[in-house]
């Protein structure tokens, strides 16, 4: 719930996800202008700009927050840039929040945008045998779906997940995304269609693995005082943000590594890295997972969404299939997961995705998610995890 450590989200905007083939800056500006209009704040009133980056769009000097500031028209605002793989967007949000809570900023704009090439994510070019991301492709042929496949197969063996369960996640998210104007894929699918799609990384099929997309998202954050002066009596607030790193030893194999840490000298902690991410955000927000009305989680694969149910505390470990089969995580259920349609309907636009999760939660908490609204939403949580020990979670409420 909102506290002195909360900031308000007074504007959210997106550029529709797709494969538009244009420059990421253009998408970012569309999303930023939409968020500013939604907030009713003039660009020139923004005193802090936080950009979320991805290296694939250029060298760090170019892909920085300042790129968006220039495109919106130099205004003298202070700036920051964040790179944290899939968590870049929330690191940018965390950067803006810190400025606001420190009293150094009153109203900030956070922007992330991506333009993606076709096909599997691949490492940046050149021979780099000291880069684990390069090595895993060269030595193992291990793509991102390889790791998703390993997690999925593990769920099958340990928790009795079935291929129908995995397909059901896709069916659910496709139905959720159907009416979301920002989603790239707006088409219902059936379990049969999912199971008829080609195998990519056994047991995961083509329709169960998230694509890469172009897209952009932006939010306007401000102090609770500013929101009040701006005439917003009951704003959506961000009450907790987590950008924790793993603790040693990280005993789960993760992209892009060849091996886990060794747990021969130190026993693994009570929580895996993935489950520690949302836990830290809940702690900061003072919220129990059972109070959550909806969640936006990183369904890089259909099976991974089931892992998240447990990792964000919607159910005990081993109970995710049961939760899914009960219908609790579908719209109309007890705690809808990915009401936006998730990555399954969007495809991943890396630096924009974590911001998009927050934008979706903002609209849900305002009751403005037309066509995919979670009735009576009070508390929302986001979660994601990316390469190199990056992950993030945000708790919002209204």
């Amino acid at each position, binding site marked *: 719930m909102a506290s002195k450590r909360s900031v308000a989200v007074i504007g959210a905007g997106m550029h529709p996800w797709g494969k538009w083939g244009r420059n990421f800056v253009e998408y970012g500006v569309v999303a930023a202008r939409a968020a500013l209009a939604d907030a009713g704040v003039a660009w020139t009133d923004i005193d802090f700009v936080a950009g979320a980056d991805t290296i694939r769009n250029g060298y760090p000097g170019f892909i920085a927050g300042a790129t968006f500031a220039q495109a919106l028209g130099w205004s003298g605002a202070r700036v920051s840039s964040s790179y944290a793989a899939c968590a870049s967007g929330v690191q940018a949000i965390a950067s803006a929040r810190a400025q606001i809570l420190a009293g150094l900023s009153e109203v900030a704009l956070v922007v992330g945008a991506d333009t993606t090439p076709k*096909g*599997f994510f*691949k*490492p940046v070019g050149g*021979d780099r*045998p000291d880069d684990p991301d*390069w*090595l*895993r*492709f*060269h*030595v*193992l*042929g*291990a*793509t991102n*779906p*390889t790791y998703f*496949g*390993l*997690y*999925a*197969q*593990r769920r099958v*063996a*340990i928790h009795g997940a079935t291929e129908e369960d995995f397909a059901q996640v896709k069916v659910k998210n496709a139905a959720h995304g159907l009416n979301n104007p920002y989603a790239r894929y707006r088409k219902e699918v059936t379990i049969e269609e999912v199971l008829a799609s*080609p*195998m*990519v*990384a*056994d*047991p*995961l099929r083509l329709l169960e693995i998230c694509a890469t997309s172009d897209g952009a998202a932006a939010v306007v954050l401000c102090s609770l005082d500013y929101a009040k002066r701006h005439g917003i009596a009951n704003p959506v607030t961000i009450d907790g943000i987590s950008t924790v790193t793993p603790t*040693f*030893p990280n*005993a*789960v*194999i993760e992209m892009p*590594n*060849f*091996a*886990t*840490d*060794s*747990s*021969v*000298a*130190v026993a693994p902690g009570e929580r895996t890295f993935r489950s520690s991410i949302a836990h830290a955000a809940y702690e900061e927000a003072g919220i129990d997972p059972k109070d959550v009305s909806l969640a936006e989680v990183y369904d890089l694969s259909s099976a991974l969404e089931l892992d998240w149910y447990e990792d964000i505390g919607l159910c005990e470990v081993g109970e995710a299939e049961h939760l899914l089969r009960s219908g609790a995580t579908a719209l109309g259920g007890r705690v809808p997961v990915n009401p936006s349609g998730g990555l399954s309907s969007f495809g991943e636009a890396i630096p924009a995705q974590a911001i998009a999760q927050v934008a979706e939660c903002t609209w849900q908490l305002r009751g403005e998610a037309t066509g995919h609204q979670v009735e009576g939403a009070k508390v929302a949580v986001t979660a994601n995890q990316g390469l190199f020990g990056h992950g993030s979670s945000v708790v919002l409420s209204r």
Partner: protein
Amino acid sequence: MAGVPVVEGFFDPSVPALLGTRCTECATVFFPAERSWCRNPRCESTTFDEVELSREGTVWSFTDAQYQPPPPYVPADPYVPFAIVAVELAAEGIVVLGQAADGVTVADLAVGGRVKLITETLYSDDDGDKLVWRWRPIKEA
């Protein structure tokens, strides 16, 4: 086996064995090898023993690559899908990845099954064969 390892310092194809290091203070094992500073956050050691990792392990999970991975992977022509295994090495307390041996498919693998390390050719170029470690299921007697 003729040829050279596809990547230096990760394995000895003649044994065959994966090559790691063990911290002389806390005994944490590192693969790939760590030789500068122990990554156990409560250990300040900077000295390591060179070790060969266990050559047998238990399948933690497995999957396959039905589609040809992008470069820098060097695929067979025509492309042949391969399985990938995550293997738990009990003595080292780690899970390590590797491709499954030539001809092994997901149908031959099971979580909890035993596998052993072998050397095979990953690809060949003008300089000769590039060798890699792979995992082969151990047939139950």
